[in-house]
């Protein structure tokens, strides 16, 4: 701390705690402005550290139908799902609900 001087013992402990917090793994805590990352999608592949973009783990093991639209519609990541934005604008046009109509999703050959 540059502008505040800890005087009593408790202030010393507060300062030490702040120093520890600064050394924390900030990448997992910060949410910078950036591309949309679907819930249920982990960008961290180290075993044991897989978390979604909010730092949570609850939505990571869901059936593919659950986050199909999120991956198809807005994700920037080159996924194993046809992307609506550039290549497959009509891929889901016959499929209002992936849970019910998933058979209407056809294969796509680039």
């Amino acid at each position, binding site marked *: *701390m*540059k*502008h*505040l*001087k*800890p*005087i*009593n*013992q*408790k*202030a010393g*402990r*507060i300062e030490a705690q*702040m120093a520890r*917090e*600064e050394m*924390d793994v*900030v990448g997992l*805590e*910060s*949410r910078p402005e950036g591309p949309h990352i679907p819930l249920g999608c982990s960008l961290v592949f180290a075993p044991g550290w897989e978390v979604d973009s909010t730092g949570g783990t609850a939505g990571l093991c869901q059936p593919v139908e659950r986050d199909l639209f999120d991956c198809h519609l807005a994700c920037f990541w080159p996924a194993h799902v046809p992307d609506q934005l550039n290549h497959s604008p009509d891929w889901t046009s016959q499929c209002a609900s992936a849970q019910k109509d998933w058979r209407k999703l056809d294969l796509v050959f680039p």
Partner: protein
Amino acid sequence: MIKPVGQLALREFHAFEAAGERFLYLVPSAGIFRIDAASSAILDLLSYGPRAPGEVVNSLSDRYSADRVHDGLLELRQIRAIGEAGAPVEQVANDLPPDGFPLTTMVLNVTNKCNLACTYCYEYGEDKIVDTTCTDDPKFMGDETARESVEFLLKESGPIEVAHLTFFGGETLLNFPVLQDTVAYARRRAEEVGKRLEFSLTTNATLLRPDIIEWLADNEIGVTVSIDGPKEMQDRMRVFHSGKGSYETVKPRIKELLRRHKSRPIGARVTLTRENLDIHRIYQHLTEEMGFWEVGFAPVTTSSGRDYEIEDEGYDRMLRQFGELAHDWLEHAVENRHHGFSNVKDTLEEIHKGVSKAYPCGAGLGLMGVTTGGDVSLCHRFAYSNDHSFGTVAEGIDRERQKDFLEDHHIKNKTDCHTCWARPICSGGCYHEAHTRHGETTAPNLHFCTWVRTWTHTCLEIYGELSERNPEYLAHFDH
């Protein structure tokens, strides 16, 4: 990592100035930081209302660079002097102390008889909780109960290596034989279980014979003498049953005690009343003329309307003199000299450590009283009251009852205190005072608020000034 925010607003702290510097006492953490001019300017600006960080930078741009202001905002947010406007205030943790919290101090009421009849006495006077002349409790604690109490303390102190055993009364020395036996027994048993016990007692000094003084000194028993000051002050309230004043009786005995007993510092404890408020005179008499190492003052505990009750103007007078004595203490501390005003020392120690209390004192937690019959009580002041009992020394602490007590008396329940900056130190004040004044131990002592805040503010100023003028002295409070 601190996330970006919309508007920033002040959070809870108490600002004070000392030695030309500005300090913050943070609430509820009780941390104290000295702040520089730019941080001070930020706080002054935010005192007019919430501002976005950009607005703060713009407003202060004539004096400080944007980087400097951003730095200041970040640090002030980190110590929680400021925070996001409208963000929910962090509540005090509702945690109760862990189960089986160790007992570190046991106050043994070795007798409920007294050879004095002090007018204001909380045990026998008009505001007594229990009339011990009408109960089945023995007048004197027996050897067996005292030994059981020692075993109780050794067991309930758990992993703590040093525990404290304080003898109390009535007049403690009326039961001197049991004191002797108990101390010898306790020392032996403590050694057997690998602990150390420290002993102390409170006495009115009327019964200090040479052989007793000798024993106190040889056994390193800490002694606190209850005394109100010079003859005219002492004899007003501290009288024998005949009404005769006790000053002439205690004076030579105290002199002898102070001459002979050097193994522990000996303190005087003064009860202040409406008629007994010349604190400078009392302090000077007890230190310079009597020779006490330290003197502590406490206003009398009384229900409203007693003729010795201190009134508002009396508290003003008391505060003024406390402030003056505290500044005397400061000048001594700056020169590394001893000064015996113990009230300021006790508060400074809490300020230095940054205590932030969920309970006003250790009663019912780390400290308990024991009656002559072996009942465990909230503290020595509640001895013999069935409503404030926590089991017996033979059967141990009634943990269920203790838990209920701790639930009911937590600062979270004292909603009046939730907006007060002095709550980390005060936490609502003495249970006995609350019981006497307001009829229940759960009540915060609202009649003391102004006094507590003014006194705490004075002590913060003293602490801040000492930290600038003689910072090494603060190590005295480290232990």
